[in-house]
């Protein structure tokens, strides 16, 4: 009897595109005649003209190469094959960070967030009919206020980058006659890029303040603030992992009459002084570390909280607690006059929803951990990250980029080889060994940030150190 051989994949065969006319599954007709009619209606001659604002370099200049349709079985095989291209943190030990972290997620998060009532709900247009969602968002806001020490939080934004823009714009619009927003260069480069994209067609301009020492030095901030500045944006722990001197920087900003916006790490707040207690006017944070796994580009979770004075400028939804006509506790959207559907062309933000499911995950996560659990998580991060840093610093060919600077769970190392090939080598040994910084900071082509969460064991850290030692010796 012949040995069983693996099934041969289905031949891809002749490529043939199914047109909208002949597809029985097409709900959106888009025939050439339809296209012409749509173009004519909006007064554009061709599709090329319609897309003229998109830079030519990123435009696809040929039709999408879509193979013919597959039935369910070969499609399942294909999806499994594609999924295997991703090396998840379960398959390689993860020391990656840079805004997305491998924190532990208690089972109760999936259990509750996976309930159909929450999981299948889209943003409710008749919001008050969904009391369960509103109660969850109200609790979310309460927890975020407690965690950040601020007066008021919204029901979440999409992620920290656009959240940082919203916060900067809130601050900018709260002060007259200014034209510039200062952003420390130690803030996540992609958040800064997001801000620049948003500002491309708006009045204020974002200006970077160099941070050659891995932190924003108070004297550099003093020198950078002039009469044109509306607010200062600082991240702590910053992109290099270092803690900024938040209180000193906030004081400088306030002494100069400008607002202070902080990008924080919610996990660090189990241990660090709360932004609200450090003089922060508006805090934003990436909430992915609160109950949501790392997964490609998202979903992420933008947290935004501020002092009361900015309440009318907060973007997005805000849930309030009140009583119904029978005196029972209930929840409603509040301060909706800030929102687009009422403010129309005067609205300053186009956020009119929230990151419901991910905010719910954060709510359950925070509630499950509680203040003690948050503190314990933060302490474990600090201890493990500092152990990893001190061990890595002993490896020949590695030195800490910013020795002596306080950090939380992430730090930057400098290696005596280009970082990218080294990391590729370490990945083949089973380690997501860090994030190469050259992509954003060309001068730091041999620098790597290493993130160590509470999930990493001593054995994993020792394994990472040994792998670095071997790779650098070879």
């Amino acid at each position, binding site marked *: 009897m012949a040995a069983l051989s693996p099934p041969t994949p289905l031949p891809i065969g002749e490529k043939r595109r199914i047109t909208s006319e002949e597809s029985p599954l097409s709900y959106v007709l888009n025939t050439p005649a339809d296209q012409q009619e749509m173009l004519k209606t909006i007064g554009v001659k061709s599709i090329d003209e319609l897309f003229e604002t998109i830079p030519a370099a990123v435009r696809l200049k040929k039709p999408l190469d879509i193979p013919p349709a597959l039935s369910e079985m070969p499609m399942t095989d294909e999806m499994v094959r594609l999924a295997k291209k991703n090396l998840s943190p379960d398959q390689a030990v993860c020391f990656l960070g840079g805004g997305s972290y491998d924190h532990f997620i208690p089972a109760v998060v999936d259990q509750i967030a996976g309930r159909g009532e929450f999981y299948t709900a889209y943003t409710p247009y008749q919001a008050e009919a969904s009391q369960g969602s509103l109660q969850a968002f109200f609790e979310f806001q309460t927890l975020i206020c407690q965690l950040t020490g601020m007066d008021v939080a919204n029901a979440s934004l999409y992620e920290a980058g656009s959240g940082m823009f919203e916060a900067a714009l809130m601050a900018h619009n709260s002060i007259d006659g200014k034209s510039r927003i200062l952003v420390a260069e130690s803030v996540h480069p992609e958040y800064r890029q997001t801000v620049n994209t948003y500002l491309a067609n708006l009045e204020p301009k974002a200006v970077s303040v160099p941070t050659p020492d891995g932190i924003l030095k108070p004297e550099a901030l003093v020198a950078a603030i002039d009469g044109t500045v509306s607010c200062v944006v600082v991240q702590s722990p910053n992109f290099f992992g270092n803690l900024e001197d938040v209180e000193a920087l906030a004081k400088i900003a306030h002494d100069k009459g400008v607002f202070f916006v902080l990008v924080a790490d919610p996990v660090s707040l189990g241990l660090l002084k709360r932004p609200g207690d450090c003089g922060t006017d508006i805090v934003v944070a990436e909430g992915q570390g609160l109950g949501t796994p790392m997964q490609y580009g998202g979903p992420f979770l933008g947290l935004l909280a501020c002092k009361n004075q900015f309440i009318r400028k907060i973007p997005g939804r805000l849930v309030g607690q009140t009583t119904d006509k029978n005196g029972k506790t209930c929840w409603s959207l509040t301060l909706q*006059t800030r929102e687009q559907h*009422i403010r129309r062309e005067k609205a300053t933000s186009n956020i009119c929803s929230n990151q419901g499911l991910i905010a719910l995950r954060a709510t359950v996560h925070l509630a499950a951990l509680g203040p003690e659990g948050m503190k314990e998580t933060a302490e474990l991060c600090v201890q493990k990250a500092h152990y990893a840093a001190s061990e890595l610093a002993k490896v020949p060919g590695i030195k800490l980029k910013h020795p002596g600077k306080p950090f939380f769970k992430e730090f930057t190392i400098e290696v005596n080889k280009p970082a990218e090939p080294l990391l590729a080598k370490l990945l083949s040994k089973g380690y997501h060994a860090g994030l190469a910084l050259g992509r954003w900071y060309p001068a730091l082509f041999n620098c790597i940030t290493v993130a160590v969460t509470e999930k990493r064991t001593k054995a994993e850290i020792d394994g990472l150190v040994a792998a670095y030692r071997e790779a650098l010796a070879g």
Partner: protein
Amino acid sequence: MNLASYRFSPSHEWCNKEANGNIAVGITQHAVEMLKDLLYVQLPKVGSATKAGESCAEIESVKSVGNLYAPCDGTVAEVNEALTGDPMKIADDPYEKGWIVKIKPTGSLADNLMSHADYEKLLAEEGA
């Protein structure tokens, strides 16, 4: 109340010239009734410029944001700070204590303003 000296706009503002030549501006009783619960008044900065027919303040109610259109070019001479904490003061007394801004005019009043009698007529035509 004697509104003989008051002038009214089709967008339901009133204005009235004061002894010092400044123009007080507010919203009419009819506007108050349409807006119902007033939540917030966004006042301009004293000294900022106004243009006839352009918004110089915002009035928020539960489900809408309304503009207060200036009746003339000029600069904001005074704002009614008392409204910041209690915008319902407008509803209590729209034509006196409920004034919103006072403008030091640099030009004449917009030419679409009307007398109280004509304004009442307009409301009647609109079926108010």
